[in-house]
């Protein structure tokens, strides 16, 4: 610790004074010859404790004290010749002592300082090390946590991939190799050893007609940096077929090149099969409904077929009679045979029309068709049924109706259902004229609208909300499927089917819209 400067400088006169006093006492009681050793001691002590500066002061004071008190003549600073040398040597030794002592002191001090510095440094270093250690511990813990999390997240990912049947893969541009996730390996039927493989191990198993598309997508993604999405099928080693859905995205590196293609592959086989089953069930149901609708038309159909048959038989019988005559009327015969041919063809047409209607069609992609034509076909088919019920038809078809995309047979069924329902609704005698109005029109936003309305009893308020429900029927022998199936057909064509009571007059109106082709193509 640092003594105050005043104390240090005061030490010199005090010690020299004390030493002088001791020496004077020793001299007074004549214990011994006056010697300056005690003074020297005071210099040593001063220099030791207070440093070189105060040491020099002590030396000066000690020399003055020596000259004044102890060298003859006493009590005077004068000095005799013999003592001069002594005084000089004393001064020299005193200075030497002071120097030595102060040097020693400085060294000691420096040492002490160095030691304390060292201690501080050691303490600091220790603290620092401890800090480091702690950080390291934390880091280790953090890393462990992160690793754990990573492991867990990887496990989750693998789990999620497994659950969702979605594998991931990365197709490296430079190596041309593809790395597959566990689930991707499972989906493609690869072993763990094939986790990184040439894409060919997968490509060669893909159905040929799908492979070309997939390859062109991949090339396109590398070249044009497009994302892609594709459905394709793959033949497994056990002979089964998997339906896959892949999404890919090019990853661009710093230099702007596609470094890799990353993507996912989802196994949608179950969904596809379920969809197919559903489609199948739907088409079967639709078929049943069609057969039922046809059943309701049986009387009309029998009539339509028996009409030409009657003409055939009657003409043939007439021919037999004409041929039995003595003079044969060739003109009459020719006409009769011509009528037979015509009637036969007519019967064939009727059968073909019914067969086309009852055909169990797979849910094939539809083609472009004009609804006016479909309406006309249904009216042809139901003409005699409509006549039988003494219903007059008001047909208002818009010319140049935009075409729609759809399945002709299915749309025929919808219109047939609506027409037959209307006919049925008017079978009860209400005393009003029986009018079936059917029309086509272009609706807003590029849709085509078909309206079928009757002058029957209309929809009772309590059931109007339910007429589209499956198995809801007001007919004693109805299945309650006609309208439900009609609606599902229209909705699967992207349209809408609804019912209202006709405005301002008796009867119900059924209306459906379908998107026109032009609107879709845009």
């Amino acid at each position, binding site marked *: 610790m640092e003594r105050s400067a005043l104390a240090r400088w005061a030490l010199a006169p005090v010690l020299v004074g004390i030493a002088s006093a001791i020496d004077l006492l020793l001299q007074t009681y004549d214990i011994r010859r006056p010697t300056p050793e005690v003074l020297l001691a005071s210099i040593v002590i001063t220099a030791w404790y207070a440093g070189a500066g105060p040491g020099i002061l002590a030396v000066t004071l000690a020399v003055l004290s020596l000259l004044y008190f102890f060298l003859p003549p006493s009590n005077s600073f004068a000095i005799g010749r013999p003592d001069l040398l002594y005084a000089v040597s004393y001064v020299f030794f005193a200075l030497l002592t002071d120097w030595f002592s102060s040097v020693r002191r400085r060294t000691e001090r420096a040492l002490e300082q160095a030691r304390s510095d060292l201690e501080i440094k050691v303490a600091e270093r220790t603290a620092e090390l401890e800090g480091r250690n702690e950080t390291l511990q934390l880091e280790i813990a953090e890393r462990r946590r992160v690793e754990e999390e990573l492991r867990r997240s990887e496990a989750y990912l693998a789990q999620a991939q497994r659950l969702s049947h979605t594998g991931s893969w990365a197709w490296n541009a430079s190596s041309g190799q593809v790395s597959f996730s566990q689930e991707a390996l499972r989906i493609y039927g690869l072993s763990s050893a094939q986790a990184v493989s040439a894409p060919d191990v997968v490509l060669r198993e893909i159905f040929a007609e799908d492979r070309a598309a997939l390859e062109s997508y991949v090339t396109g993604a590398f070249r044009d940096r497009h994302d892609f999405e594709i459905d394709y099928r793959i033949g497994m080693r056990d002979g089964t077929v998997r339906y896959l859905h892949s999404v890919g995205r090019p990853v661009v590196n710093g230099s702007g090149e596609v470094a890799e293609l990353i993507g996912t592959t989802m196994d949608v086989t179950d969904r596809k099969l379920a969809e197919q089953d559903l489609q199948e069930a739907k088409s079967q149901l639709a078929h049943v409904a069609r057969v039922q609708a046809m059943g309701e038309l049986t009387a009309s159909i*029998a009539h339509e077929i028996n009409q030409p048959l009657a*003409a055939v*038989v009657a*003409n043939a019988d*007439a021919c037999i009679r004409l041929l039995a005559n003595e003079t044969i009327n060739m003109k009459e015969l020719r006409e009769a045979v011509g009528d037979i041919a015509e009637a036969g063809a007519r019967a064939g047409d009727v059968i073909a029309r019914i067969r086309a209607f009852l055909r169990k069609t797979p849910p094939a992609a539809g083609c472009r068709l004009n609804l006016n034509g479909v309406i006309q076909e249904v009216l042809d088919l139901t003409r005699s049924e409509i006549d039988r019920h003494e219903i007059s038809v008001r047909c208002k078809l818009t010319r140049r109706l935009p075409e729609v995309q759809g399945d002709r047979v299915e749309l025929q069924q919808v219109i047939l259902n609506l027409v037959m329902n209307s006919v049925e609704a008017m079978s009860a005698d209400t005393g009003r004229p029986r009018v079936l109005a059917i029309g086509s029109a272009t609706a807003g936003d590029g849709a085509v609208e078909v309206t079928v309305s009757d002058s029957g009893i209309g929809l009772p308020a309590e059931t109007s909300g339910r007429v589209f429900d499956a198995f809801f029927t007001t007919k004693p022998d109805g299945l309650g499927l006609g309208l439900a199936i009609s609606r599902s057909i229209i909705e699967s064509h992207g349209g809408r089917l609804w019912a209202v009571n006709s405005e301002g007059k008796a009867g119900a109106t059924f209306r459906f819209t379908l998107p026109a082709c032009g609107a879709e193509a845009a």
Partner: protein
Amino acid sequence: MNEEAPIVFVVDDEKLVRRALERLIRSAGFEVRTFASARDFLSAGRPEAPACLVLDVRLPDLSGMDLQQELMRAGDYLPIVFVTGHGDIPMTVRAMKAGAVEFLTKPFRDQDLLGAIEQGIRSSRAAREHRKEILALRQCYDSLTAREREVFPLVTSGLLNKQIAVRLGTSEKTIKVHRGQVMHKMEAASLADLVRMGEKLGIRPPISD
């Protein structure tokens, strides 16, 4: 009278069927007239001749059954042969009860149709003769005096001249003259003949005491 040529009417909305039926029926030697609807048939005039109607059940506007009702209501006895593309039992029963000759389901053979037509024409002819006979009787009856018309039912009810004279408060001789006049004017060959005529004319004897 019997040499009147019978006519067959055909009502069917189907042109091919109409032509075929016309051809077939004509080949059997009948005169044929065809119509596309019941209304056309009704509005066309009908010549005086034994006739038969070949009628399709299902027709636009007025159906075959409705036409049958219409003819019955008008007291027009015309034998009908129904033909239908799809007949059911209730329909057949209804048509037959209403007096149809036959109910044929298309397609049918010629003998079935022609047989039915012949039967229809026969009954048409019979009906016409019956009507003619009634007409002639009615003419004779109309020529009777009021007193003779009083005597007529009493005679046919089997009373003796004497009984009739008491009933009418006159002499037996006078009644004998009246009876002779009635027999003569009605061209009756015998009492039995006169009784039959009375039945045909619907002349009932007055309620006896």
